[in-house]
């Protein structure tokens, strides 16, 4: 394997480790969104503040929300993979 190929694998592993370590170190948390934490902070700082708009369409629950996030990631990953595939094929053809 090339030097760069090895580097890519090491980097991928490293980013996975960074994402997993907090899950192991912090046991008593649900890892809610930072935006939720900010909402609480605002209510604390500014108890009189009333939100004056609410989302147009709000997913009914966590499941639907995660579905939509998956759709977003899936769309992105699909396009990304498709283009990368074309590029790698092209390089093969250039060699022949």
């Amino acid at each position, binding site marked *: 394997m090339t030097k760069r190929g090895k580097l890519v694998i090491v980097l991928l592993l490293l980013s996975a480790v960074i994402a997993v370590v907090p899950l192991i170190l912090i046991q008593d948390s649900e890892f809610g*969104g930072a935006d939720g934490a900010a909402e609480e902070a605002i209510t604390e700082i500014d108890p009189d503040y009333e939100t*004056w708009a609410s989302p147009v369409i709000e997913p009914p629950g966590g499941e639907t929300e995660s579905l939509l996030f998956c759709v977003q990631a899936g769309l*992105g990953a699909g396009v990304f993979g498709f283009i990368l595939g074309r590029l790698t094929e092209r390089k093969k053809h250039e060699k022949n």
Partner: protein
Amino acid sequence: MTVKQRKIVLASSIIALSFGIVPTVSAMHIMEGFLPPSHCILWGILCIPFLIAGFFSINRTRKEHRKTLLIFAMAGAYAFVLSALKIPSVTGSSSHMTGTGLGAILFGPAAVSILGLIVLIFQAVLLAHGGLTTLGANTFSMAIAGPLLTYGVYKLCQKMKMNRLVSIFLAAFLGDLFTYCVTSVQLAFSHPSEVGGMAASLAKFLGIFAVTQIPLAVIEGILTVIVIIGLESYAKSELKELGYLSR
């Protein structure tokens, strides 16, 4: 950019700046309804010149460097994926990356502002994440301020003749982190604490957004380096056309 395009960007900048000077001021993205209307409008107007510049920049790419459009689509897809992944962080809460660093390094900060806007609209409308009223503020932090810093850091590192992959890491890392610092400033502006004022609020929001973001920003830096490594081996000709690699 043509002379006419320059004029339009300049004019919109002047309008935006004049709004910025008027003292209107009394990570995740900012939630719907959590900024007062005047601030929503202010941030929205500040975004306009960048978005117009972005529109022209994309148009120019489309006309002059047609074959790099594929890479542009890739940068957009990359932002889509990264901003959908909520990753646990050391603070015990989760946040997501921005994914705008890659596009900023390859295509410049203006073009990326449009990509970021698309991602934000998608999330605001369908996912109830972020919001339409806070779209301006979120676009400013994620699609403009972050990419601008990324681009600046990258160019600076290039001048200092730093290793290319290290500069890409630094640029993407700092740009991601800066996005959430800007978010914190925006919230502190709108919600100054009664005790301690804006500074106290800022410290609080930085504690929530920026600290959570640090490990995620490292991941974004790493992933951006990986994608660039891939592009350098499979899309040399496009990168040369973009001026990323010397011809």
